[in-house]
């Protein structure tokens, strides 16, 4: 059985943006990936992010999600959120 894959865009910010040198990247994942799978695939395709990823959260359409959350809408905006330091 062949797994169908899709490229999903992920927005990068702050130190993640600097590490990759881009403000967005694309990762190749299944059609309804979980947030955890997105994070894992970011680590696979962008090894420079690996040290940072354990401290990051994923946001889907401007809301934090847990790693089990499935991303069903292909139009959803995905953002990698490193530990924040506002204030």
């Amino acid at each position, binding site marked *: 059985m062949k797994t169908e894959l899709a490229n999903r865009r992920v927005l990068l910010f*702050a*130190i993640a943006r600097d590490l990759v040198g881009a403000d967005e990247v694309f990762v190749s994942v299944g059609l309804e990936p979980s947030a955890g799978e997105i994070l894992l695939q970011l*680590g696979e395709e962008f090894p420079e992010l690996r040290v940072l990823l354990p401290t*990051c959260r994923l*946001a889907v359409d401007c809301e934090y999600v847990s*790693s089990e959350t499935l991303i069903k809408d292909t139009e959803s905006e995905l953002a990698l*959120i490193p530990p924040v*330091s506002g204030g």
Partner: protein
Amino acid sequence: MFETHFFTGIVDHPIDLDGLDQKLSNPDVGSQGWFYGVTRRTTSGKKTVSLSYQSHRAMADRHLRRLAEQAAEQFKLAGVVIVHRLGDVPVGEASVVVGCSSAHRSETFAALQWIMDTLKRDVPIWKREHFEDGATVWVHPEPVQAQQADSYAENQNTKERHL
């Protein structure tokens, strides 16, 4: 009946403190508190020239608004102001201003602290420090909660078991 006045936002220019003052004016409220986070010159011996802030703007806007609403409900506030500045914030200028008003001061103080603590934990804004010697560094944030840090590690373990 309890009406609350909210004012939240992200700005790219110096924060107008006098203007914000007006947002909390309310003849039925006895207690008003403000917190200003200001860029300071020295951090552990090195001279800071400015901090620059980046955000996921739409998400930060939404989360500031929600913070204000939650604080208003939790602490019975009559007014809440939360404004965060982005871009370069020179030494001595405010990067964040929070204001709360309520009938009693205990609620005002509790709300200010809760808003600042939650903002620093959850609102997607990042600070970069620019030193006099030209160096810049993303400010190391508050320690990330174990639960958050675990989610990536857990997934890696799961994946490895599946290999």
